[in-house]
């Protein structure tokens, strides 16, 4: 969120000793596990080197596709909701502003699993929405166990991660630039397109990443709101570890998923970087 303007990666008072705790942490809990994933992905159950796990992957091509499509949809919906919200929020007075950002953060204080689970009671056939609809003579509609429910779950859970980075970027917006645009005769739309949008781009990119990545790897949402009938790639990975006990295949799928995520982020950063030297804040 606040990594937008780090121009000097090594500040003068850089001190390796201060960084030691985190370095140790990231080696043990990030670097080593990554190597373990790679190791499992290229070995079989006996530990011998093999490409078999990777060769299995085309079997899951369609699932990869479904996951990508759902995540892109969820990310776009998040962006459409979050961008105007963040814009208006950044222009509010201090009081309501704090109130609103509180309301956005509040759901994040509650566990993600519980929030998803509560959607079941809202969307179920005997749930809140359908009970109301039936009272006015519509329905019951099939809301739960549909792709729509899965995307809704993603949007609901990850929306704050889109709002907050954009909001932070908007706050940093230099108001004299907006005034200059007005003075020079730009229409409000022109001002949005030429000034606000480019300047808030780092926030947008960061928001997209923070929504897209968890969406594409989620498994709980699809199981609870999709009825276990639509499998996402996260579900397939979870299944390998939890029930099929095929760690090697699970690791291979995870590895490819990571590569795919990296590629899509790189592509996105490439476009964002073109005319904005302040981009490139992710990865």
């Amino acid at each position: 969120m606040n990594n937008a303007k780090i121009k000097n990666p090594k500040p003068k008072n850089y001190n390796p000793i201060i960084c030691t705790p985190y370095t140790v942490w990231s080696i043990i809990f990030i670097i080593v596990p990554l190597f373990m994933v790679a190791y499992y992905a290229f070995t079989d159950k006996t530990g011998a080197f093999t490409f078999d796990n990777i060769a299995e992957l085309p079997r899951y091509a369609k699932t990869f596709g479904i996951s990508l499509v759902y995540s892109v949809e969820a990310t776009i919906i998040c962006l459409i909701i979050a961008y105007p919200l963040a814009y208006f929020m950044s222009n509010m007075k201090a009081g309501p502003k704090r109130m609103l950002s509180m309301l956005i953060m509040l759901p994040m204080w509650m566990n993600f699993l519980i929030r998803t689970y509560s959607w079941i009671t809202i969307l179920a056939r005997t749930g809140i929405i359908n009970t109301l609809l039936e009272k006015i003579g519509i329905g019951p509609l099939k809301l739960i166990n549909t792709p729509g429910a899965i995307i809704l779950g993603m949007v609901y859970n990850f929306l704050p991660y889109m709002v907050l980075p954009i909001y932070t970027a908007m706050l940093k917006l230099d108001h004299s630039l907006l005034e200059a645009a007005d003075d020079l005769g730009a229409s409000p739309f022109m001002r949005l397109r030429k000034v606000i949008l480019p300047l808030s781009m780092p926030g947008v990119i960061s928001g997209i990443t923070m929504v897209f990545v968890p969406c594409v790897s989620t498994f709980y949402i699809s199981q609870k709101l999709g009825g276990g009938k639509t499998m996402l790639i996260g579900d397939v990975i979870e299944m390998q570890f939890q029930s099929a006990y095929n760690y090697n295949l699970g690791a291979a799928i995870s590895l490819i998923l990571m590569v795919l995520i990296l590629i899509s982020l790189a592509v996105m950063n490439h476009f964002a970087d073109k005319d904005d030297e302040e981009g490139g804040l992710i990865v």
Partner: protein
Amino acid sequence: MKKTAFILVALFLILTLTLCGCKEEPKRGVGVDVDIDLSEDEAAIEYEGEYTKELAGTTINVFNWGEYIPDGTEGSLDINKEFTKLTGIKVNYTTYESNEAMYSKLKGGGVSYDIIIPSDYMIDRMKKENMLQPINTASLSNYKYIDKRYKNLYFDEQNSYSVPYCVGMVGLIYNTSVVKERPTSWGVMWDEKYKDNILNFNNPRDAFAVSQLLLGYNLNSSDRSQWDAAAEKLKEQKSILQSYVMDEIYQKMEDGEAAIAPYYAGDFLLMQENNPDLDFVYPKEGVNIFVDSICIPKSSKNYKAAMMYINFLLEPEIALEVAEYVMYASPHTHVMNNDDYTLKGNEYLYPNEENYPKVQYFKDIDESIRSYYERLWEDVKLY
């Protein structure tokens, strides 16, 4: 502004903390009352076996399924506490969620348990892998109460490794307000009429079992074409299926969200308490049965105390408490015939001879077949 908010939050925290503190106090008082009640209860129980204090001060490690022993909640008797009172042996009680989880923990080594309660097929596997200690059932004075139906079962033909604890059968739970005619076959789970009203297990072995039973196959078949056919059947079902579930089944059946689901008779009784429209049937094609039995693993370091614990669990009064709490069928003859047993002769738990379904056990299945059906299951779930 910020300061006031901070003070408010701090005040709130202090308030809740003090309130919690207040609540804590009277609770302790109540605890004392309960203790007195318990000791009165204890006086009422007469134990048939002999329990000495010779092993007092030692500990046994009991590893059991979650919610599988009365623990003093909901007015039940705290079995482990009773045992400690009687023998002075401390019970270190931990739980697991599946046979496989228990197995991998023991297989991994570095742990020592004195009592475990696995299911039939897992006992078979652990016995083959030399992970269990023999149990001389003749030396257990209460073993005579075990119903002969549950002796000499395939996983322990000589009754030398396990003592039955609970028994359950999978049947079909249905909502009578939706399914008007009492179903007799698993085929109802493929009936288009009930589209989006049907649930199935979200694990391969149980889901395949439903389809295998319908097709008249052996649940432990080593014939791959039978597994293929069962998988096809599941794929066929998918378009009318509402969802694959495990624990959510309680909520979904109780709320009327779904109308047909396969599950265990004991769990059905719990669901029926909350939704009287539910009924249960054992389909004619047969059902899957499980017997969870008490075993002593090789890693046990307190064998004698473990034997004492097993005999204690077989005490008529204790077994009755277990049967009331767990709500699965009891293999204990004294419990089955006890007039105080609220589930005595329950038609679902203890079907009489003429209604007794054809039963099939899960058996430890060959690794190559297991990975084969896991793959088929993936196919079923993927598309």
